[in-house]
């Protein structure tokens, strides 16, 4: 049970809700909250902010259907029924080697939670490559700047930053940082392109989204195709992920 303590609309049809819940605040970045809305299923939403000291956590989501619309309309004081933190989050990067975060649209929020925890230890300046359809949908840019990241912004229509996708800046960053570690979250097409451009290098981590049922590995609804311990097969986003290494996934 997690009461909403703050609500913000960072972009059109995007809402960030802060809740007080020490259990959730202790999540690993990349893990998710499984939130009761309406209808038959909970909604898996990743954490944008995690603060163990205050016991507060925030989720940032896009309004895409009736469940998220209901959630977007909840006000401060409403107590949310949240299961979590669930899933496997991002592994902490090697602080001695450079790392960069690559986020597309509503894939950006979990990268902020990661950046907030990792930046202090980083021996090199981290990069955040943020992509969106257009200017108003670039999420959390200011937060990454405040953390001291080198921030690159791309938009599909060129209304902000560089026109194009996150892949252009990522290619340049990878060229400069052959030992770099990559953490990405965004639409499947973006993740597929991140994998393609990062070649055979290790340390590429991807946070996936999939329509989900139970959230605890029982129903086998939220699968993606990948490499498991027993060879190629479906893997569960909820418990095997949502964060997978590049080697664990097979993109069509």
């Amino acid at each position: 049970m997690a009461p909403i303590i703050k609500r913000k609309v960072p972009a059109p049809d995007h809402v960030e809700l802060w809740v007080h819940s020490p259990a959730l605040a202790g999540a690993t970045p990349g893990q998710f909250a499984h939130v009761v809305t309406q209808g038959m299923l909970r909604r898996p939403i990743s954490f944008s902010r995690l603060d163990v000291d205050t016991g507060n956590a925030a989720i940032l989501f896009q309004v895409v259907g009736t469940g998220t619309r209901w959630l977007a309309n909840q006000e401060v004081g409403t107590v949310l029924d949240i299961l979590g933190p669930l899933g496997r989050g991002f592994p902490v990067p090697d602080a001695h080697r450079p790392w960069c975060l690559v986020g597309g649209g509503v894939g950006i929020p979990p990268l902020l939670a990661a950046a907030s925890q990792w930046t202090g230890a980083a021996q090199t300046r981290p990069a955040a490559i943020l992509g969106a359809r257009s200017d108003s949908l670039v999420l959390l840019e200011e937060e990454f700047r405040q953390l001291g990241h080198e921030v690159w912004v791309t938009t599909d229509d060129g209304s902000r930053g560089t026109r194009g996708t996150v892949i252009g800046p990522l290619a340049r960053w990878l060229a400069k940082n052959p030992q770099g570690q990559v953490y990405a979250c965004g639409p499947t097409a973006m993740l597929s392109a991140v994998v393609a451009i990062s070649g055979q290098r290790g340390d590429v981590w991807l946070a996936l989204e999939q329509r989900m049922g139970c959230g605890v590995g029982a129903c086998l609804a939220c699968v993606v195709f990948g490499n498991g311990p027993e060879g190629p097969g479906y893997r569960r986003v909820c418990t095997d992920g949502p964060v997978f290494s590049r080697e664990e996934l097979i993109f069509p």
Partner: protein
Amino acid sequence: MNLAVSLPRGLELKNPIIAASGTFGFGPEYASLVDMSMLGGISVKGLSPDPWPGNPPPRVWETPMGLLNSIGLQNHGVEVFCQQDLPFLRDIGTRIIANIIGHTVDEYRQVAARLSREPGIDALEVNISCPNIKEGGMSFGQDPDQAAQVMAAVRLETDLPVMVKISPNTTYPVEIAEAVENSGADMISAINTLVGMAIDVKHRRPALGGITGGLSGPALKPIALRIVYEVAQAVKIPIVGMGGISSAVDVVEFLMAGASAVMVGTVTFQYPRRMQEIVAELPEIIKELGFDRLQDVVGSALPGKSNAAHVMEEECQLPRPNGRVL
């Protein structure tokens, strides 16, 4: 109030609430969220002789008061289940029902034989009704002869209590239930999901990777109740009812319609502890409705037993205070 349920071949449940197959994994997944020893039983996800990969995603889609799924019976096969999952399940303090699936009669037979050699399995549930596979599965559940063949083959391999899970995707579910009763089934579980589909209008394609899927959830409940009510009048063996149960009152509806126990599924995804809550609430609700024992609730709305019928009989026979007989 004692909620214990006695079913054929010595299958004793501490209460009538069983986790429905496909919604509770192979056992360990919900261990941190649910006190499994509170449940009457768990029906594990369907087991085939060899691993089945399942259907392409997306595999779930919400509908008004319902859920479409097209998992495609993904499972790691009966052998891995016996080695990996069963040791955990043996110690959790509830009845374990193994749901079995196959493409052919012989595959059902193989799984039944394998499971019958394992301690820790309390009953089998023969799934002849899954709408999410192309061959076998549901087709066995649409033809009384094929359904009987599957049941007869399973019966030869096991002395365990066996329930056959019947399909709503047939015009005459009662005929299927009668056919499997005659070939040795100890119980009927009813019902599996109802085949349906949804369209993803944004992408102009069927919403599920498997094109069609099985509808579960409260949307299914009236259909499930109707089938339980019909089957209860046609067979002598007990029925385990299911379809959209979300509350203790829903459970009572199924019991009154003729089910001796129930399975709870889709609601668990949203509220993992709902089954426990139902177990806790059930005694009071049953008592409030005027029953002293759980078994008295079973079938109490069936023709000839229902309260409405009693009232009518009494009114017809008893003289009214003014002396007139109605």
